[in-house]
């Protein structure tokens, strides 16, 4: 798996799109992320950030999910 053109989700700007390539979180956080439908291969859309810059809101599998940047930093995305 090439990691060269992948970025972490927390670095993506509102309005950008991408495909999840890898989740580096471990344990319960990883399980939580997976259960919300964020598995590798899924397409995501960054919708925006909260007034104070954190958390962020993304569109995945047709619904809006908010997550903290700290968690988003564990999700590696290939920008499209």
């Amino acid at each position: 798996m090439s990691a060269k053109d992948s970025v972490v989700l927390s670095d993506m700007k509102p309005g950008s799109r991408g495909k999840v390539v890898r989740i580096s979180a471990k344990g319960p956080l990883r399980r939580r992320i997976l259960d919300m439908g964020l598995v590798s291969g899924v397409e995501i859309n960054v919708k925006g950030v909260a007034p104070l810059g954190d958390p962020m809101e993304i569109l995945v599998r047709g619904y809006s999910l908010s997550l903290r940047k700290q968690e988003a930093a564990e999700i590696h995305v290939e920008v499209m």
Partner: protein
Amino acid sequence: MGLTYQSVGIPATREMFNVKVTDNRSVIALAGNPNTGKSTLFNALTGLRQHTGNWPGKTVLQSKGSFIYKGREYTVVDLPGTYSLLANSVEEQVARDFICFAKPDTTVVVVDATCLERNLNLVLQVMEITEKVIVCVNLIDEARRKKLNVDIQKLSELLGIPAVATAACTGEGLPQLLDLISQVVCGDLKPKPKLVHYSSELENAISKLEPKIKEVLGAELNSRWVALRLLEGDKTLIESLEKFYSQEMIKATREVLA
């Protein structure tokens, strides 16, 4: 060794969930992702007034109600909304344990018609635990408003279980749902869930484990599902098994001695 307390008919563990156990009373569980309208549907079915609200997590206490349809009495249990049944949280464990151990006569999985993909995740998981599943595609009015069309017939075929479209807050589709529930409960309609196939690696492991699980648990739980939980190292399931069956066993011995 096998478990000696093979249940016949009504699972005895059901009593542990404070569900009244009588012969002429069937238990229906409402499962589903948060905010899909379970409580709204519960209210529509039972005439009760559970609180509802447009945010995930409104219901945290499991509530019960009942209704009578075609001369049969039904107890409905409104389970907390969960995204999965893999026991990452207390709610998920509660919902899972209810389906596993109270063994509802039918589990209605309420899904959001506007967000089917994510909701199917849970449907597929429930199907692995029990065959008696109905999928209730709720919020169909919202889907129409967003110009989404859900092919209910096809959905039912692909999943192998009965499906119905509803709008819980207007009562649309409720008669069909009631009809399906009673058919599944009576056994007139036998859902044949089409289960997820896993990687060959996993499938191999599952087939090696299944017979051994059957030896321990008999037909109490679906052995394929238990195998998957063992493979991913889910300790909460073992704890729950202990909790529900050891008490059961104690009770059984007491009855024998008395």
